[in-house]
């Protein structure tokens, strides 16, 4: 019995196996001739051959030729990782007129020849077992149709910081309509400030104003300020965003794609953390930037009536926290990640301070100097030349801050750079170099079932293979909603999200891999066990259906909402529900083939 969205073929299964040499990468270790010869004896395998480079046009032509002229209707290619060439071979099948899902890719390079160099026989044996498992899988594979969804040609973008604006412009310029939702009354997010930013030395506000005016003048962009998103329903191609507008009216807008550009919040230390809030002269870096911007005093920084002659900057406050050393904020995890921008931002601010008030004495207490990125190291060099005294503390040690009766502070720290000497600095002000925390979007996370990393930022599926994509189809992330980034990185990520949105909506219909749950109505007993396993609202429901002339209760999958996680599969005793292309029967047959070899 075929799964519902599959196309079962009446033709006998004719399987071809191709073993790639990868120009010696595989064949120097694995005896590819022996592998092909062994596979040619395997039941239902009609052709088993080896070739120097399967991904070359000759290699692909060989597959196409065997499909067209030899009647091959199932293909197994044993080569490098599917991450590299799965699409190449799917396209070859398409050109030959065969359903692209009737091909199985077996990895015998990264997971065999490259890791078993000292054991050629073992690697050859393993390759044979893995390919046999691939054959067993493809024997049980039916043709699948890509899922087609009529797509609303509008993109909804949540967050009007630079990431949201940049993504909006990328989409709008490609001709898509955009609804840009910003909860505040202004655009720009955390860059809505007058201070200078690295590396361009322009004011943050000027970046915001430039993007803002392009956004406001683009006829494809509907700007919705003071908008509060209440809920999001639907699926890729057809989302509904319910929100409360400027006039407190509830509204709904439809979109085909959603981009989340909800940004970050500055870390706020708790009272007493590095003496924060025990004195007005213990400030965070964002506060200090404002103080510096606003100070009009000619010779030295004047703050709260006090001339500031010496300042200590302490890095990594609220970032790179360690178990047993730091206390997390109430109800939160430790922030173990590096906020990435704060080292450069602190050094950049120090250099600006030195330009305005060259005589200020600076102690910069850091653990690792992460001024990564184009020309950022030169900011560090400049600070070194500016007589900034750098103190490198061990990561697990926290500098001690003690207020003296005269209102100044003694800051004590071990200095790794001078063979662990204890350094004591007497300063008028302490700047806590605070980093980024995810902005509070827990309502959206709960409502939309958004995946978050342990750090609390939104979690893309894969850093290299599927950047800025969430596991939820049709939802992308832009900028610092994903993790700490500077302006350039934010704009790049936002452009990527914009391009992905444009490419998904480039056709009136969205094509999706059909690896979603499917129910065999005949086998379904209507027990409903699968429903409680599914975390995706509306993906799986019970319904009455006429099956074999009788009305019965069966599970029903909404293909646009199901993500294909398979949680439902495990609890279904009669195996009525399966993830198409990844069925339990396929996996059991694969494991049997491996065990037997």
């Amino acid at each position, binding site marked *: 019995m075929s799964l519902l969205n599959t196309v079962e073929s009446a033709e006998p299964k004719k399987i071809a196996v191709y073993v790639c040499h990868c120009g010696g990468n595989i064949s120097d270790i694995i005896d590819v001739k022996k592998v092909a010869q062994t596979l040619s004896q395997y039941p239902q395998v009609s052709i088993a051959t080896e070739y120097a480079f399967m991904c070359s046009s000759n290699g692909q032509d060989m597959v196409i030729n065997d499909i067209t002229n030899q009647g091959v209707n199932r293909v197994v290619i044993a080569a490098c990782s599917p991450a590299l060439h799965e699409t190449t071979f799917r396209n070859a099948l398409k050109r030959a007129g065969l359903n692209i899902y009737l091909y199985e890719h077996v990895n015998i390079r990264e997971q065999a020849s490259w890791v078993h160099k000292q054991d050629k026989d*073992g690697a050859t044996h393993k390759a044979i077992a893995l390919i046999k498992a691939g054959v067993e899988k493809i024997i049980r594979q039916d043709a699948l149709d890509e899922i087609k969804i009529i797509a609303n040609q509008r993109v909804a973008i949540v967050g009007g910081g630079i990431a949201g604006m940049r993504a909006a412009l990328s989409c709008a310029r490609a001709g898509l309509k955009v609804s840009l939702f910003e909860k505040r009354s202004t655009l720009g997010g955390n860059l809505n400030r007058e201070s200078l930013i690295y590396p361009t030395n322009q004011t943050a506000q000027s970046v915001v104003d430039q993007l803002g005016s392009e956004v406001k003048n683009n006829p494809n962009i509907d700007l919705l300020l003071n908008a509060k998103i209440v809920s999001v329903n639907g699926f890729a191609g057809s989302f509904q965003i319910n929100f409360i507008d400027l006039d407190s009216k509830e509204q709904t807008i439809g979109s085909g794609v959603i981009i989340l550009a909800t940004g970050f919040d500055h870390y706020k230390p708790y009272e007493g953390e590095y003496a924060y809030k025990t004195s007005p002269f213990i400030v965070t870096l964002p506060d200090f930037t404002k103080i510096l911007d606003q100070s009009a005093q000619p010779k030295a920084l004047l703050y709260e009536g006090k001339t500031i002659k010496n300042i200590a900057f302490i890095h990594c406050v609220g970032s790179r926290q360690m178990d047993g050393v730091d206390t997390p904020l109430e109800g939160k995890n430790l922030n173990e990640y590096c906020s990435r921008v704060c080292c450069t931002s602190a050094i950049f601010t120090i250099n600006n301070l030195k330009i305005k008030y060259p005589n200020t004495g600076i102690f910069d207490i850091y653990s690792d100097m992460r001024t990564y990125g184009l020309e950022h190291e030169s900011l560090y060099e400049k600070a070194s030349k500016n007589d900034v005294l750098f103190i490198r503390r061990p990561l697990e040690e926290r500098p001690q801050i003690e207020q003296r009766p005269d209102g100044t502070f003694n800051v004590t720290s071990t200095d790794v750079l001078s063979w662990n000497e204890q350094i004591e600095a007497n300063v008028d002000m302490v700047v806590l170099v605070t980093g980024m925390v995810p902005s509070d979007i827990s309502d959206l996370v709960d409502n939309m079932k958004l995946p978050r990393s342990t750090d609390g930022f939104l979690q893309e599926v894969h850093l290299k293979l599927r950047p800025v994509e969430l596991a939820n189809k049709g939802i992308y992330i832009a900028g610092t909603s994903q993790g700490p980034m500077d302006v350039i990185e934010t704009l790049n990520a936002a452009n990527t999200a914009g391009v992905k949105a444009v490419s998904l909506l480039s056709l009136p219909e969205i094509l999706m891999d059909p690896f979603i749950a499917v129910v065999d109505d005949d086998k379904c007993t209507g027990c409903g066990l699968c429903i409680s396993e599914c975390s995706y609202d509306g993906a799986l429901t019970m319904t009455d259906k006429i099956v074999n002339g009788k009305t019965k209760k069966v599970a029903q999958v909404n293909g646009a909402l199901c993500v294909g996680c398979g949680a439902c599969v495990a609890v279904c005793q009669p195996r009525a529900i399966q993830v198409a292309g990844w069925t339990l029967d396929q996996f059991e047959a694969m494991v049997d083939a491996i065990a037997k070899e």
Partner: protein
Amino acid sequence: MTKDSRPKILVITTSHSSYPGANAVGQARLAYDSNTYIIRVPDPVMFPEEFYIKALTNGIAGIIIMSSGSDCPYEGAYPRLAARIQSTYTKMKALNMNINRLKITTICTVCTESFLKEIANMEKVVAA
């Protein structure tokens, strides 16, 4: 070819996380024993208890599930998987099976050292 007499280890990886992690081990040209067989799934949460017990009864000596842990992109999948492995352990105990033959762990796309450590640990279990 004659049957490989060494105990076999099945490594269940996730398409988005530990499978690329296993590739990273290869890209770094690190080595482990060839009695290890990696398969990839969208998420191991799809396997019922019986899947593991059947595999361990039919010739697989040890299974390592390399999940994405709390970084799993599928909502609610990890706690469900963890609970399912616990109930598999209960069933294995009832069948007098050594529960160390089934291990659940978290491996990401770059965890090459942890990957090797898990395999080395399972090699010890299946050799015993």
